[in-house]
């Protein structure tokens, strides 16, 4: 294998695959990427066995071939080379690779390509989803995915793709984010449902970036396939039973408060400064025209914030983890939000007010004091 490549082209691709590479992998080959120089291009594959990314860039291939090298080392070398440099990579004996550029010269240890896991392929037709739509939906659910590894079936988001609707749901057991959008999806006959791992969603966001493109999607029994531009991502489907989220959508929340998203966000952020470090709760007190937020901590002191709201009705008091609300307000993308409540023990629901791009509902369980 021998190829010449532009630093900028190679760096972009190496950067994309770093997130997949296991930092502390116990299987050495998973710290490596597979390089495959063929025709006028070099393909790069990285995998952690759960998520795999295949990408690549144009190259002047002198001799076709494949090999694996450390993803981190190659990335560091390429990153630190001068901006407009040309890089020449040559496969040596015993899986060593020589990297040369200007006066810099490296010999990098590799591993036999035979040890590199094979990446599942999908040869059927793909469903097209606009990239910006998928990205907007992922951004609206990602933060609600649990960070606790032990709650396996919640380590991802539910993706449901119907002929006329796409929907994503994520929860950590205390709040739930539900976003959907009506659109036509050709080639979808019955609803496709899959639990998509958190890491996969993060990588999809990275692969879409700011590009306007169509994302191809398919699933087989155990895998999800995404094609994003000329890059491919293959993910394992998360096993397990996603909770019955329809059940927790509140239907009897009769108190509906409209507030400015920005004012609410800023007031919560300030009040949260004084929330108890352990409990981390902010108390919300709704009265006609006013929403009062208070927080106190035995060690630190107290905070009180009041904002004007549109509300006529009985007063209600409820406690929330401020971070949960901030997560939503940061991505909701609308000027005003509607918070619907019933009492201090029932989950609240918060939605963007009319005119939002998505049907977006966020359900939060209260905290007890």
């Amino acid at each position, binding site marked *: 294998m021998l190829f010449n490549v532009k630093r900028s082209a190679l760096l972009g691709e190496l950067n994309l695959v770093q997130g997949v590479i296991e930092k502390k992998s116990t299987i050495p080959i998973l710290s490596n990427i597979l390089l495959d120089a063929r025709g006028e291009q070099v393909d790069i594959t990285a995998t952690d066995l759960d998520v795999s990314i295949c990408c690549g860039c144009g190259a002047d291939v002198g001799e076709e071939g494949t090999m694996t090298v450390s993803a981190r080392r190659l990335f560091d070398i390429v990153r630190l080379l001068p901006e407009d440099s040309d890089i020449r990579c040559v496969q040596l004996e015993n899986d060593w690779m020589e990297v040369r550029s200007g006066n810099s010269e490296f010999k990098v240890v590799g591993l036999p390509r035979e040890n590199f896991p094979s990446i599942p392929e999908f040869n059927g037709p793909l469903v097209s989803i606009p990239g910006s739509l998928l990205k907007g939906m992922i951004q609206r659910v990602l933060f609600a995915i649990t960070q606790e590894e032990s709650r396996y079936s919640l380590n991802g988001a539910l993706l449901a793709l119907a002929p006329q609707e796409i929907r994503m749901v994520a929860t950590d057991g205390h709040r739930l984010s539900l976003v959907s959008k009506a659109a036509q999806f050709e080639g979808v006959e019955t609803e496709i449902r899959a639990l998509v791992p958190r890491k996969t969603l993060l990588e999809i966001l990275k692969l879409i970036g700011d590009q306007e493109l169509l994302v191809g999607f398919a699933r087989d029994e155990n895998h999800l396939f995404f094609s994003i531009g000329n890059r491919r991502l293959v993910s394992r489907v998360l096993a397990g039973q996603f*909770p019955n989220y329809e059940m927790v959508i509140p239907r009897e929340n009769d108190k509906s408060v409209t507030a400015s998203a920005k004012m609410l966000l800023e007031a919560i952020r300030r009040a949260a400064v004084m929330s108890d470090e352990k409990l981390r709760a902010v108390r919300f007190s709704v009265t006609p025209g006013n929403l009062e937020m208070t927080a106190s901590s035995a060690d630190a002191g107290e905070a009180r914030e009041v904002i004007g709201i549109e509300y006529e009705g009985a007063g209600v008091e409820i406690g929330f983890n401020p971070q949960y609300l901030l997560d939503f307000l940061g991505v909701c993308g609308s000027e005003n939000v509607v918070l619907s409540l019933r009492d201090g023990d029932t989950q609240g629901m918060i939605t963007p007010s009319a005119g939002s791009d998505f049907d977006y509902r966020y359900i939060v369980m209260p*905290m007890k004091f």
Partner: protein
Amino acid sequence: MARTILHVDMDAFYASVEERSHPELRGKPLIVGSDPKGGKGRGIVATCSYEARKFGVHSAQPISQAWRMCPQGIYVQPDMPKYARASECVMRILLDFSDLVEQVSIDEAFLDVTGSRRLFGDGASIARKIKNRIRSDQRLTASVGVAANKFVAKVASDLRKPDGLVVVEPGREAEFLAPLPVSRLWGVGGKTAALLKDIGLQRIGQIAALDRRYLVDRFGKGGEHLWELSRGMDDRPVAPEEGYKSIGHETTFEKDTEDERLLHDTLLWLAEKVAQRLRANHARARTIAIKFREADFSTYTRRKTLSVAADTSEEIFPQAWNMVRRLIRRGVAVRLIGIYGSNLESERAGQLALFDQPEQKDRRLAAAVDDITRRYGDSAITRATLVSPGRRPTLNGPTRSIPK
């Protein structure tokens, strides 16, 4: 104005409580700890009476060693609930003399009585009153140190055990400490003591005589701390804590084990115990820690902070097992494992769950189990995994409670 701090330390606490309920044991070498099994037992001595100490037995000693030194001793397994009840009674007496009571462990506490002197007299009189109350109300003895700060008070209480009372007048701390060995300083263990000995420092007075900078250069930040302590300087407040800081259980295996299944089952059983105690104390733990000791005594601890506090084994066990699993190495036998819950929250406060699963269902199950064990004892109900023959983990640490 100098503060008046008392350190109250119960004498051979577990042993004294046992003697109180079994007067026939009085004056005999009594050793509270795990079952010695004729010298083959593998736990440790929790505490022992002063008679047993004459044979060289001391707390934290391997029980097998105690057995060799004192085979005629009377060996009793710890009854923690009983000691906890006795401790509570003692702490209540202390609260009659000051609001500022900081319980350090089951059998010792600091009191700041600066504000109580007008009412009860000087430090020495308060100490005598406390000792008398503990003797008359509880039929137990305590040793008390009186000084202007916590460190000196603690050293003082330990000086004339049992039933001691040592008062260090303000301003005479350095003089009091000077002849004592450096190992009396807080934070000086075997290693530091050896280092200090290497440079010829064996008495606290020798450290106090050194230049502060010399110690800082030699030992870093710890050096400064040493210098201050050696002169009897310590300004930490007596900080009353509400309830426990952590709740944990650990166990030493009968035989060092590599059996992953046994480790798994034992850990599950420990998780049950910790969860039960959390619930009994109306607490939930935000942080779960594990302790893992290999046959050669290499000890590892790992901790994980959860987004929501836990009080069921369903929540605690997976976290603990995840941490333990990563420490298991082929060919390395394990001596002890333990689970600790800390960062405790009150069960009444906190985040409610969205789904009736799994936590709320687990909690209902846990409540039912708690009810059964309260009525019929610990062995009345347990997990099926823990009853298969030969798999039942046996516990023999000082954490054991004997069902009555």
